[in-house]
């Protein structure tokens, strides 16, 4: 052992003194001095340090960080010589797990401990395991954007930061579910709240905030976030991240494997949140119609999540078909109620009869709404001049099966219209029914909706449909449905429909809330039956089918070209885009790719495709390492299908993203 001395106190072996600081990179930190030789193993050194410190503490997580080389000394069987450590090395004996603040896709902050010594790919996998997000390879961390110094000190509202630093996960074991959440979340009220935050969609943001947040104005702006990705093959420490720093956790690769509503509660929610913010902050463009659908889905999701109807409640067993329902019903009936009543209810076909005002838009007519006697039976709507003529032939009879039902409602002005577009061999007939009040409207509307699906009012869902419509109207009454008071605070928007929190700011500028609300409601009609997870899935799918979905932009300069251009990287292709106009110049698909490599010296990425097409470019907006990793990452993800059910092959990933060569 090192430190053998003669009687005079001279060291007779070749040992020397090694100074090790205890704690995280802090020059003021306490230090211990050990006598070591070049043959000392790291493990032995660690032991000595602990002895020297002489404090009772769990040191198991501590390791030595070599500051000059920016390297952890993790191989305990290696000797100091093998590492090349001499007496002048600045070594820090500190914890590998350190706290960071994560900014989640839903924009909430979460403090947790993560490894500063493992490659980021692994650290992210651990984080995702803690958050119970499957397929961590799709996510990664970004540096938080540098905050601009605020000129005047705005009062930022105190933000709740969730803390998971104390939660320790048992290694290697799949998290067990307990009370509908992974067991490690059910320890305390705080962690439970944390899980709710992770797995429940957030309410719509304050429209004012949306206006303030930065939005990309050009393609060049869209390249900015991508310069901040951290390197997956190196650890956080090596990338200059310090304990307590804020990092963003985001889905990096837009290739979401095997989304499973049951197993992916958190993943689905966070993905939804990322998609939602993408749309609201105009990171991705969509058309007006698409925005309305997105808005309707957000509204619906928020409503469900507010009403506390989480995924489990909404997941009715699809196997329970109408027959089973009928049988259940039967059982109930068998237990009570006189048979005659039942027979009565069986024999009466529910129908609606009332005076309604009807309007049929035609060319060259100035007639407005006219009062008629309207009878709605089964799926057929008939109207008569008056009640007296009802037994006779109706003016018109419409079978509503397959028709489009569009609400045209304005609660504040007491307008309750139903627009029906009824297909017939001759074309569509358009007809408006105007109801007097909410009650009447709700009943007729529910009937129309059922009829359009070919069901009658005898259907068991009729009553609930009526209730849903009434609830809907009351929401509209409370909200910005034309009252002119739509720039309320965020708390008000949670209750009512504030359309401005649901659409991107450019639609806020384009439309008044009064105009937006009915359009969102119209779109909502098509999604009103979805459960929370179904709605989230639908949202994500609609997002995925946008043409610009999943393209990460980088400013590059192609070899031989004199101007900067944009390179878009998607999950299956590379796209060369004109920087100024935004037009696609050329697309290369990964499936045609033979190889790609990086010349680290000149920071150039060279790719060879089939038929001897060679492309080379240097990266301007981001390090070429990030571009390289993006391409390799997508190719790694495309191998997942065949390795289904297997542990992710980390080595393969690191190899594909060039992690190994980089050392």
């Amino acid at each position: 052992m090192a430190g053998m001395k003669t009687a005079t106190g001279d060291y007779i072996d070749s040992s020397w003194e090694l100074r090790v600081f205890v704690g995280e990179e802090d020059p003021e930190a306490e230090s211990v001095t050990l006598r070591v030789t070049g043959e000392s193993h790291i493990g032995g050194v660690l032991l000595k340090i602990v002895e020297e410190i002489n404090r009772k503490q769990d040191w198991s997580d501590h390791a030595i960080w070599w500051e000059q080389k920016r390297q952890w000394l993790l191989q305990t069987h290696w000797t100091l010589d093998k590492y090349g450590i001499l007496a002048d090395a600045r070594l820090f004996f500190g914890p590998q797990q350190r706290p960071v603040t994560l900014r989640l896709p839903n924009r909430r902050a979460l403090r947790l401990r993560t490894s500063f010594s493992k490659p980021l790919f692994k650290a992210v996998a651990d984080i995702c395991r803690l958050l119970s997000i499957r397929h961590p390879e799709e996510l990664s961390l970004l540096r938080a954007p540098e905050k601009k110094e605020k000129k005047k000190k705005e009062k930022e509202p105190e933000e709740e930061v969730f803390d998971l630093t104390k939660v320790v996960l048992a290694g290697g074991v799949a998290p067990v579910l307990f009370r509908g959440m992974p067991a490690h979340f059910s320890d305390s009220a705080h962690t439970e709240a944390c899980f709710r935050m992770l797995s429940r969609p957030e309410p719509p943001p304050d429209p004012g905030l949306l206006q303030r947040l930065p939005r990309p104005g050009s393609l060049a702006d869209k390249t900015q976030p991508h310069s901040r990705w951290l390197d997956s093959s190196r650890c956080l420490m090596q990338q200059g991240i310090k304990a307590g720093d804020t990092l963003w956790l985001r889905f990096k690769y837009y290739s979401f494997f095997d989304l499973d509503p049951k197993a992916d509660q958190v993943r689905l929610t966070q993905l939804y949140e990322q998609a939602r913010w993408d749309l609201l902050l105009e990171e991705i463009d969509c058309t007006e119609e698409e925005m309305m659908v997105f808005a309707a889905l957000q509204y619906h999701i928020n409503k469900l999540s507010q009403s506390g109807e989480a995924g489990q409640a909404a997941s009715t067993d699809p196997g329970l078909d109408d027959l089973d329902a009928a049988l259940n019903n039967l059982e109930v009936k068998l237990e009570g109620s006189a048979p005659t009543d039942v027979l009565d209810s069986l024999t009466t076909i529910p129908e609606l009869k009332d005076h309604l005002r009807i309007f049929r838009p035609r060319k060259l007519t100035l007639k407005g709404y006219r009062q008629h006697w309207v009878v709605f039976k089964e799926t057929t709507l008939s109207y008569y001049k008056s009640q007296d003529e009802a037994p006779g032939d109706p003016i018109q009879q419409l079978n509503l099966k397959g028709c489009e039902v569009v609400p045209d409602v304005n609660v504040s002005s007491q307008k309750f219209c139903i627009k029906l577009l009824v297909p017939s061999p001759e074309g569509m007939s358009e007809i408006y029914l105007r109801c007097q009040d909410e009650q009447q409207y709700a009943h007729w509307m529910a009937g129309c909706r059922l009829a359009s699906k070919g069901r009658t009012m005898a259907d068991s869902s009729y009553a609930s449909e009526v209730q849903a419509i009434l609830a809907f109207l009351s929401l509209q009454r409370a909200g910005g449905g034309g009252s002119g008071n739509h720039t309320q605070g965020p708390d008000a928007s949670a209750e009512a429909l504030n359309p401005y929190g649901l659409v991107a700011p450019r639609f806020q500028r384009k439309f008044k809330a009064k105009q937006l609300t009915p359009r969102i409601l119209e779109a909502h009609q098509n999604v009103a039956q979805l459960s929370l997870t179904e709605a989230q899935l639908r949202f994500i799918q609609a997002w995925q089918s946008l043409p610009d979905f999943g393209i990460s932009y980088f400013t590059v300069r192609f070899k031989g070209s004199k101007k900067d251009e944009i390179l878009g990287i998607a999950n299956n292709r590379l796209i060369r885009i004109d920087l100024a106009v935004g037009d696609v110049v050329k697309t290369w698909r990964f499936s045609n790719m033979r190889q790609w490599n990086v010349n680290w010296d000149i920071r150039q990425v060279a790719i060879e495709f089939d038929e001897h097409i060679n492309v080379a470019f240097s990266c301007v907006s981001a390090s070429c390492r990030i571009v390289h990793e993006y391409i390799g990452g997508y190719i790694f993800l495309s191998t997942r299908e065949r390795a289904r059910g297997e542990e992710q092959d980390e080595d393969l990933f690191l190899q594909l993203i060039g992690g190994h060569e980089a050392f």
Partner: protein
Amino acid sequence: MEQLSDEEIDHGAEEDSDKEDQDLDKMFGAWLGELDRLTQSLDSDKPVEPVKRSPLRQETNMANFSYRFSIYNLNEALNQGETVDLDALMADLCSIEQELSSIGSGSSKRPITETKATQKLAVNRHPSKHGTLKGLSSSSNRIAKPSHANYSLDDITAQLEQASLSMDEAAQQSVLEDTKPMVTNQHRRTASAGTVSDAEVRSVSNSSRSSVTSAASSMDSLDIDKVTRPQELDLTHQEQPIAEHAISLRCPSKQAQRHIDFTEEQAEPTPHSYLDRETSLLLRNIAGKPSHLLTKEEQAAKLKAEKIRVALEKIKEAQVKKLVIRVHMSDDSSKTMMVDERQTVRQVLDNLMDKSHCGYSLDWSLVETISELQMERIFEDHENLVENLLNWTRDSQNKLIFMERIEKYALFKNPQNYLLGKKETAEMADRNKEVLLEECFCGSSVTVPEIEGVLWLKDDGKKSWKKRYFLLRASGIYYVPKGKAKVSRDLVCFLQLDHVNVYYGQDYRNKYKAPTDYCLVLKHPQIQKKSQYIKYLCCDDIRTLHQWVNGIRIAKYGKQLYVNYQEAVKRTESAYDWTSLSSSSIKSGSSSSSIPESQSNHSNQSDSGVSDTQPAGAGHIRSQSIVSSIFSEAWKRGTQLEETSK
């Protein structure tokens, strides 16, 4: 054919007025014999006399439904004086019945099933024999319903309620009818095809139901003799028998049974009310009791509840609509066949291919032509045929054509021409095609190809066409308004695809002065006449046309299209022996290593890690090599066909 009139026809076997009927009698004779054998084997200890009668009665009872005339092409058939292909129709009926029973009873391939089919044949033969009766009652004989049920079923109120009314009738008849053939046979034709007519509801009251009733009535009398019991058990144990299966099981012996219990039945005027107050009380009492503790009465009550369950299942069956359709073949001939409303286009196509001995190919399609609007559409395989046909008007000139159409699945044979948004056609390696298809259709969402370009749009009500720049997105078709850039935010929605189908326009250069003949039409399926709601688009060349049509199909149907294709390939494959081809295709797949070098290396690594069972060579190929081989075969066939058709 001369019996078009509304006269009532006795369906008793004694009725044989014309030649056809004699013919029929012979057939009946054969069936009766079979029935005899069946019934004798079922209840050998029964007196022979009633058994002999039972088939007859069976027949009359079963025939007690009203016929519904399908209007499709009926006029045409009459005008042409063409003989309707009765045999084909019969075969149809037969196969449909068998299919149905096999669906329901799963593994039960007992001889019973066959006899049952024959029985039904005996009944169904009747309408078809009359030649002109081209329609068959929908629900007809496939119902067994509990009578006067004192239970409530929200979903089925209407039918059930009417049915139970007619049930009474039927039950009463069944008491009387024993001695004479049924006089009340309704030989009814309804001219409307789509609506659930009175007659149809009435037709619910067929004998099979009443036979259930009477069997039940014998149960009620707690006189469960040896003959009834096995059958009852059969009924209750088969959880999901298709209606007629169960019925036919019991029918013959039930008749015998009834004979014996006849007096008792009369004594009990409402034997068929299953769950009277008493029973329901019983049921309530026995809730939660272990079965061995139940008294006999309680067990009976339980059995009744069970029967209701079975009966409920049958109610579903009862609502099946059927149509007799005329399918035109590419050689100007036509076939008449029956489809029921549950059949998809794929099933109908399979039937047609079987029957026409045309060889199996992916390209066989059912094409709907709307002559009035000069447009046509290939039905997608997953679509419901009856639903689509019901959109036709009564006097429709529309036709259904069975023919090979390359464009049906060209999308999957050469995906690179449709999915990449490129203007020019290109070749692509099979392996890459497969990757491309997987990418497009097998992800968590379907990628709609980016199709955009200038198309001509017809002005409403005029024969003039205007150019516009259109774009296809998953959410619909958009166009770029004048003076605006091609960015998402400025696009104007032309239409959304949920409610429209895409058709090929035919000869619009003449009809509407279209700039070219490559037109596509978007319209709601129910619209059958000229209307402002029909949108006409015209492309510069046929390539663009096909790109648009296929793009719209993808946007509209998504993954379903691919599923259809794979299903079609599977069918075609099972019809042929492809073993030689598939092995070669695997070989070619592994040799064509156009895989990126780095990728292939890595994938080898991962594969070897993944599975030891896979041979090293095969591991190289994607694990869905099945898909790949399916694909490459289909592709080969596709190209062959394309070549031959050129």
